[in-house]
């Protein structure tokens, strides 16, 4: 389940940051990815919602500390 999320999430990150060599890990955060500022964060969150067919609230998207937290959030949303 988590591997599936990571694979799909990697596609989304590559799409948003226009970097097809980007490799994600749970520990990565905004400081590790070129161009991940607050504006790009919104684009990223919108793309994630589209790709995973989930709706995230403002508080959920603003509290994320790293990629791992995002994976956990998506896991809980998809885990019914």
């Amino acid at each position, binding site marked *: 389940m988590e591997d599936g999320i990571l694979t799909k999430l990697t596609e989304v990150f590559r799409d*948003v940051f*226009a970097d097809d060599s980007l490799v994600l890990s749970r520990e990565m955060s905004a400081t590790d990815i070129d161009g991940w500022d607050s*504006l790009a964060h*919104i*684009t990223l969150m*919108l793309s994630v919602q589209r790709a995973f067919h989930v709706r995230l*609230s*403002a508080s959920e998207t603003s509290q994320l500390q790293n990629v791992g937290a995002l994976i956990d959030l998506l896991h809980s949303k998809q885990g019914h």
Partner: protein
Amino acid sequence: MIDFAASRSRQEPRGAIDPMSDELFAELSWLPRAPGDFSERCKALIGSEGPQGERVRALASYALDENKLNRLAKVINALRASPGAIHPLAPFRLGITSNATTHYLVSPLIATAARHGIALECIEGKFDQSAQEALDPASAINRARPDAVLLALDYRGLPLRSMPGDAAGASQAIAAALEQLDAIRNGFRANGDAICILQTLARPVETSLGSLDLALPGTPRHLVDGFNRRLVERLGGSQDFLLDVAGLAESVGLAEWHDPTLWNIGKIPFANRFLPVYADFVCRLIAALRGKSRRCLVLDLDNTLWGGVIGDDGLPGIVLGQGDATGEAFLNVQRTALELRERGVVLAVCSKNDDETAREPFRNHPEMLLREHHVAIFQANWNDKATNIRAIAEALSLGLESMVLLDDSPMERGLVREILPEVAVPELPDDPALYARTMLAAGYFEAVTFSAEDQRRADIYQENALHIALKESATGIDDYLRSLGMTIHFRPFDPLGRSRIAQLINKSNQFNLTTRRYSEAQIARLENDPAFFTLQVRLTDSFGDNGMICAVICARNQQDWQIDTWLMSCRVLGRMVEHAVLEEIVRNARLQGIRRLIGTYLPTQRNKLVEEHYGRLGFDLLERADDGATRWELAVDKYLARNPPITVAQS
């Protein structure tokens, strides 16, 4: 009656977006889907030698989502750094100012502008500082001397506070908001020498008193409606232009358009998934300002203006007119074309048909709305459509970038896009009821003014349904055919295919060498008769399954095969299918010790198309009768393989 092969292929899913859903606009359904290697193609543009404008435009002409638009915009910005690299896109400098966040608009606008032939440069004003940007001669926008400034204002940032029942207050509030706008417009004109593009306001979803909101002054609905109406009046006669965002938001659905979460997170004025269509709305207006709107609509006939194939189904057989859902759908296509003509769009016809056959409905079908005098150029022949469209453009003295082709066939659409990328060719859904909506959603004929001259324009182009001679055929068609990935499937007649074979044999008129009709029972008897060689032929390609498209019957006469019947669906003309079929006949002939193929052509009113069929395939003429019937022979051991770009399926 419907073309048999055509109706089959319709049932196969092609993965197209269904514009019946609200995604018509959000997904830019009139554009082809982006290819899988889109990002590689973007990358390949960087560092390429010479002007890349055409390749950029080609990439921009796919249906791109926000992320793909952002990616392409990066490429465009990089190319702009080297002089000439973005040629021949026309430069346009756009200032953007708003009381909402404009950051997300910029890259989609830059990428989308390329779709419309524009190299767009954007200068963003400071957040919610429209007045300062306008009035300060040294502001970033004014210093940039833009061609136009987009005032992307949101109702939430204007002084339009809800005050139900307060008519005087509401009127004052609207007047104050408009005066603010006037000051901004005058500022940009005086300090930046720029025209302004003003947006109508998309009204909020939330109601106050319900339906009464519409009538009661001071409700949000009443305020926004009043503002929009007076804005439109104010712009009349000015040099500024209107962008009807309210209309767009209503078309896609206000509840979809407004996203309260996004507004709260970052003052984002509308749901980002509408960025692509918003950008297209802005850019088609900019293109219209630069005189780049399209001017000529080229119409296919069979299954585009009426249901069915006129050459096979005949005048009584085509589906058109009131009282039948499909017939009304095609009427609507015709009505739309006529309305476009009334506002100055020139109409032309381009169809694979005999000229006389194609004109018959225009002359004699009682339900036809379109008549010959509405059509400037009428090209019905068996040549490829790229060649014909180029000839139409030349005859009308219009550039190819002025042309739009409406055609139900994905294969023809693909061919014209491939050979003539300047021509706009909307993707169409399967249901003809949605043809007009889809084409109009693309906004090809955007206008910024409308004059009495426009009303007369269609007449200026002497509407006499002229047929023009073709000079030379388009090149590049072979490459396109190869890219279709055609696979052909051969089987002898069998019980499974029997009813369809019978249908083809009793219905095909145009590509039919002998027009001999056989009943299902007669066809069944051929199935295991060693005196006959039969073929039923199916064709698949990258667009799907074309269904059964050909039937052949050869009768053995000692060491000859007499080709008793050879017919094909006209949908697969010009694809070298007949060469692949002949190759299969010859292969079998050799296996069975046949020395000679004898072909016969029996002329009818409908099958002039195949008069030279056997000659084109390398047969030698044996005799020509007084009635025009011909007999041909091909010595099997002298047959030269033509290697058509079609794979034979191994069964």
